[in-house]
């Protein structure tokens, strides 16, 4: 079995960007020569230069992650950009291979692929056990054999996307693998933070401090954010109760704190994560049949959690004036995030969703064209 694509990438200085790369307005450059991978499996194995290459590409595509407005055939309009980019993956097929459902991520990838001119097929494979039936690899190979150029993979097992990348020839874009990574989410979060702080020119986040609050240990979003944000120069502090934010996370290059009130006034962005009740084992007392479990073995009670780690309106007022609130969704309103904050002026949640399209367009086109 080849493991070339599964180990950590060597960090080689020459993979860094040349500083000050200027893209002339209106000229869509070819896919950056600094991106060579057919796959996007995680941010933890990428260099800062590779991450910036995707983000730069996303910045160019940003006009396409919104409605284009009234039709306009002039050059240098979003419509002209849409026509050019709409040819980039023309004739190609992108398959959304989702072993877990996720409406927002799948929708975002679908819009991104269509904007690039690709055909999109959706495959849901919701199987409780693959061990004796068709394996993950079998499924992916069968889908690939129908002639797809890229698999967008969401699975509940860490390493699933990397495993498939080892066994198929087409591109694999990780749309979330268990507790490991969700790299396009990490990229769009970095993009959103860069935008909020005027760092879109170079995607250099040096001097910024970002808190990730909540269920870090079970969160692939947190892992991608820690990897991405620290590589771009930001400082990351993970905040949560010991069971959800254990000290052992510090090996990832972040700080760990159990005191949100101490951290909050010092940060430039705060990412609130929901507690993934479904990933923390059986609660001590089973919920009523049919009731959504709102207990987690990792916390004593929702009330206690909210008291210490929820972002209430009152807490949000103690943030720096320039600080923003982000959330990968879905939000457990009233637990980690109050309504007023979620919909308030600091919230850039909808900017995140919007940038997701541009980031995914960048990732898909760069991976598919790297394999062509």
């Amino acid at each position: 079995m080849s493991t070339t694509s599964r180990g950590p990438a060597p960090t080689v200085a020459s993979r860094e960007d040349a500083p000050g790369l200027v893209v002339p307005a209106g000229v869509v450059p070819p896919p950056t020569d600094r991106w060579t991978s057919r796959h996007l499996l995680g941010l933890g194995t990428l260099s800062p230069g590779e991450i910036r290459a995707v983000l730069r590409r996303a910045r160019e595509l940003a006009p396409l992650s919104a409605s284009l407005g009234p039709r306009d055939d002039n050059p240098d309009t979003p419509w002209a950009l849409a026509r050019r980019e709409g040819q980039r993956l023309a004739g190609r097929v992108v398959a959304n291979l989702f072993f877990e459902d996720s409406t927002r991520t799948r929708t975002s990838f679908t819009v991104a692929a269509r904007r690039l001119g690709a055909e999109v097929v959706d495959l849901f494979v919701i199987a409780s056990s693959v061990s004796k039936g068709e394996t993950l690899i079998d499924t992916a190979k069968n889908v690939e054999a129908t002639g797809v150029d890229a698999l967008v993979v969401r699975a509940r097992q860490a390493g699933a996307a990397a495993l498939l990348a080892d066994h198929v020839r087409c591109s694999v874009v990780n749309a979330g693998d268990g507790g490991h990574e969700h790299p396009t989410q990490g990229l769009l979060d970095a993009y959103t933070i860069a935008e909020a702080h005027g760092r879109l020119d170079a995607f250099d986040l040096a001097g910024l401090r970002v808190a990730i609050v909540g269920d870090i240990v079970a969160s692939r979003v947190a892992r991608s954010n820690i990897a991405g944000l620290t590589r771009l120069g930001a400082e990351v502090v993970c905040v949560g109760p010991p069971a959800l934010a254990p000290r052992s996370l510090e090996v990832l290059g972040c700080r760990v704190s159990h005191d949100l009130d101490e951290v909050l006034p010092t940060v430039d962005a705060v990412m609130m994560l929901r507690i993934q009740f479904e990933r923390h084992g059986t609660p001590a007392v089973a919920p009523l049949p049919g009731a959504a479990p709102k207990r987690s073995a990792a916390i004593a009670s929702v009330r206690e959690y909210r008291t210490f780690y929820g972002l209430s309106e009152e807490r949000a007022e103690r943030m720096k004036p320039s600080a923003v609130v982000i959330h990968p969704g879905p939000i457990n309103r009233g637990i980690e995030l109050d309504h007023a904050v979620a919909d308030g002026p600091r919230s850039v949640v909808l900017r995140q969703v919007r940038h997701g399209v541009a980031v995914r367009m960048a990732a898909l086109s760069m991976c598919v064209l790297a394999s062509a």
Partner: protein
Amino acid sequence: MPNILIRGGRVIDPASGADRVADVALADGKVAAVAPFASLPRSPADHVIDAEGCLVTPGLIDPHVHLREPGFEDKETLATGTRAAVFGGFTTVCCMPNTSPALDLPELLGFIRERARETALCRVFPVAAITKGRHGEELAELALMARAGAVGFSDDGDCVGSTALMARALADARPTGLAIMQHAQDVTLTRGAPMHAGVVSARLGLAGWPRVAEEVIVERDIRLNRSIGCRYHVQHVSSEGTVEIIRRARADGQPITGEASPHHLLLTDEACDGYNTAAKVNPPLREWRDVRALREGVADGTITLLGTDHAPHTADEKLLPFEEAPFGLVGLDTALPLYAEALVDSGAIDWPRLVALLTIEPARLCGLDALGLGSLALGGPADVTIIDPGLSWTVAEADLSGKGRNTPFLGRAVRGRAVATIVAGVVRLARRPVAAP
């Protein structure tokens, strides 16, 4: 069966303390003579094996293998597992009871004995389950199974988690003279954890199996056993702390033994990087401090047993995502040079001590010394392994002679290999020519 003359090897028999260049004569399935080099007359009917430059040792014994029969014959059988054993130099293996059905009845031990007689290439002795069905709820018939040929008791693969049940198991096993062998893992601390809790698991986004989950069980069991005095054996020790717990208990005079596996003596959790399922094993590969502690434990006599925990799985199973792939790796073919690398080349112990760890020590653990196994005593069983300690080779799939290919050691350059394995006077493996009359 022909008589066999093994000439000119360095004969190491730790049970008697012998270590000298000598000839060994085997006749009628028994050790007929051990005599100074070239002093034994060669009778015309003898098969002769030239063992110059080699070690001639009692047949090697592995107290911890999974042969998967009955129930999981797609992974391994007694026939294929014992083939891997003799290719690796082992003449005796003790098979674990996590079969289907589990070996929890005296009748099933009889089945193993029959299948071994019909199909096995080396001696097979069953370790019986501690609890019925290995479910950890009800004690199995330990006394009856002891009478039916069990050589120890274990729920291996699962821990006996209930404190009350373990107390009863130790009490019931005590009069049988056999050891309770514990797979030490507090499962409340290891839910969903496919690997060691450390840097690599954090990076891969996998739940971690911490050292303390092993240590608390061993500490508890030793405490329970203090007033009982049963023989208690810790299987596949993986943690630095467990070594220290066993060291203290032995210093205290308690009948406690510990076992180390080749992979835990050589590899760390880094081997799991890239979601390498070949390195997914239970207990998990840990860190260098654990590797060092295990080697020190072997060196100072804390760890007195070596077991491969040979655990074959099908290729398909190991192609599952890391969290879903089964635990375990195959060990019989590759164990000998790996033990030598970890323990002899590192300077922890010398070859005679390694031979003891692979012969008389496991024989004593499982009561096989009473059958004359584990030594080269005159009149004892003609189980002999001839080892070329300098033979260099590289582990390839073709070297794996059981059904499983699941090992993280593929491609590793190693030194030392069994060149002949003789079981009850029958040459089962000969990588060197045997001169027939």
